[in-house]
C-alpha cells in the first residue's frame, strides 16, 4: 500500500514504548501492532486524534504517502 505508517519512528522520537502508547490511547496492543506493521486497512479519526495527542505530533508525522 502506498500509505506508510511511521508510528514506530514517532514512538522512537518520543521514546515511548508500545505498552505506554496503548495505555494512553486506549487501543489494544494487538491493534497498535497491526497499525505499526502497516497491516491496518483504515484508521479512525478518533484513534488518529488520540495517537497525535499522546505523541504530540501531527497526522502527517504518522502517515506518509509514497508512490509505489
Amino acid at each position, binding site marked *: 500500500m502506498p500509505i506508510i505508517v511511521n508510528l514506530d519512528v514517532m514512538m522512537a522520537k518520543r521514546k515511548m514504548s508500545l505498552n505506554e502508547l496503548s495505555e494512553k490511547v486506549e487501543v489494544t496492543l494487538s491493534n497498535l501492532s497491526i497499525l505499526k506493521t502497516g497491516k491496518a486497512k*483504515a484508521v479512525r479519526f478518533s484513534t488518529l486524534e488520540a495517537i497525535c495527542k499522546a505523541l504530540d505530533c501531527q497526522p502527517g508525522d504518522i502517515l506518509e504517502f509514497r508512490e509505489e
Partner: protein
Amino acid sequence: MKAEKTLPLLQVFSWIIYIGISIKTGTIIISYLVSVFINPQASADLGLSLDLSSLMEFNLLYYHFMLSWVIVIWMLKASIMYQVIQIFNKLKLVQPFTEEVYSHIYKMSQLALSTGLLSYGAYTFSRWISKFGVDLSNLQEFISGRAEFLFMAAILFVISQVFKRGIEIQSENELTI
C-alpha cells in the same frame, strides 16, 4: 425464537433430511444392483415406488443409463444437504462471514445447478423414450422439481456473492483501528 436457538434446531432437521435422502439413494442403488445382477423383477419397485420395468423390457441400455442418471441426481441432492449441514456447523453469528461458509454456499449453488440441469436432461430423455410407447409417467414424477433447483442455484449464487463481499467488509472492519 432467537437465532442462537433456531440454528441447532435447523441443524438437526438438516441431518434428518440428509439421512433420509441418503437412505433413499442407497435404496435405489441397491434395488438397481439387485435388478441387474439377481432379479430383474426388482425393476418394478426400485424404492420410492419407482417402477422402471417397462423401460427395462424396452431397452436394457436405456434402463442402465436412466437409472444411473437418477442415482446421480439423488446423490447430488444428498450432497446439497451435506453442504447445508456443513454451513450450520461452521456458521458463527458473531462473525458470520468466513471463507469456509462462502465456499459451502458456492458449492451448494453449483450442486443445485448440476441437479437442475441433470433433472432437465433426464426429463427430456424420458419424454423421448415415452414416444416409443414406454410408460414413464412414474419416473417423470420422480425427477420433478427441475426448475426449482435451477432457481435455487441462481439464488444461492447471488447469496454466495453477497457473502464474498461480506467477508471483505468484515475483514476491513477487523483491520480498522
